[in-house]
């Protein structure tokens, strides 16, 4: 007879397999943005090449875990959508000012929010994250290669961003463990310091 423990184990295994299958991509001898495979790989690796993007995406996930329900799941749902709006503006060539400072500021602000263990109201947290999502999305949109397969590139890009969020949430779940809260707040401080370094071009 299946117990709740068995059900949870199956659910965790299924989730892990799903993440692995989504994260896996075929070995290939040739690189390039053209075609389905190349477009997906190019899109998937795009957010990973900028440490300022990686830091901010993980920070969003950690902050969401800090804020607990419902922020922990609202942020991974809302952020990709708002980021895609920014990305669409970038693709269409709509100019936005202060993109790079905005991206650096996202690491600073969200990092400090984690450091201070700031449990902002949901609407305010959503506003802050949404604003920075526009900057990140716009930056990605302007950098997209023209030869890329649109669907494959966009899919890879969105999945990579979402997985970074989930990694941040995974780290953030340590908030309930002994010493986890302090470790996460320390990580927030490091992310904020990185943001300052990005802002002044030190990294």
């Amino acid at each position: 007879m299946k117990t709740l423990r068995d059900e949870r184990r199956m659910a965790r295994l299924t989730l892990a397999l799903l993440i692995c299958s989504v994260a896996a991509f075929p070995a290939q001898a040739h690189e390039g943005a053209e075609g389905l495979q190349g477009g997906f790989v190019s899109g998937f690796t795009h957010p990973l090449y900028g440490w300022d993007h990686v830091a901010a995406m993980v920070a969003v996930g950690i902050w969401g875990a800090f804020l607990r329900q419902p922020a922990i799941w609202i942020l991974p749902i809302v952020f990709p959508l708002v980021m895609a709006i920014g990305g669409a503006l970038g693709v269409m060539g709509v100019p936005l000012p202060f993109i790079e400072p905005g991206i650096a500021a996202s690491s600073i602000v969200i990092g400090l929010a984690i450091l201070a263990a700031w449990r902002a109201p949901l609407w305010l947290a959503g506003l802050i994250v949404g604003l920075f999502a526009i900057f990140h999305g716009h930056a990605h949109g302007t950098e997209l290669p023209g030869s890329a397969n649109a669907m494959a590139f966009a899919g890879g890009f969105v999945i990579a961003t979402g997985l970074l969020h989930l990694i941040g949430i995974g780290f953030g779940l340590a908030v309930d463990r002994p010493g986890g809260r302090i470790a996460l707040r320390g990580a927030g401080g490091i992310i904020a310091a990185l943001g300052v370094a990005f802002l002044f071009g030190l990294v």
Partner: protein
Amino acid sequence: MRWALALIAALLLAGGAEAHTSIEGAEGFFRGLAHPVMEPMQGVLAGSFGLLAARAERQAAFRALVLAFALAVLAALVTALVFNAVLVPTWVLASGVLACGLGLAAFRHVPGVVPLGLALIAGPVLGSNAVSEGAAGQLATSLGSLAGASVMAIYLGGLGTWLAEREARLDWLHLAPRIAGAWVAATAMLVLAFAVQGGGG
């Protein structure tokens, strides 16, 4: 033990990949069957619709919704074949994907009218986009596309139903299709932007 036996059976039954089928004219059908995979927008549209149908307030409505979707695809295919219609542009397909993704992200339990309406819109869009160009094997390829899209909707809908059945014990499972819907909608937005800009292959 059962998993090990299933794996052994799968390995023993595997055959060599063959470039050509022995049934004359069947290649077009298989080409159409693979269409939702080769044209990811179509596959994502069918799959996200299946997940959305699985979130219907009444689970019994799932079968009716998938059937409505398949019939809508068929109607569009027949219309396109008979009237030799032009392929639906990318932005229309992307809009259908966006609608399905947003519906999936926004609702934990979807009122039945939402997926029904999307079936009547997304089905014809997918069907019109799935008609193969060229006269040779058009019917077989189109029927293959219908089968491929329906299989995608059924399997992803089945996954959605499986998740929904376990939500009573593991409440966080409801987030999986919602997050998937957000990712699908975000991807569709970017594809729309590419289409408007006139680029992106």
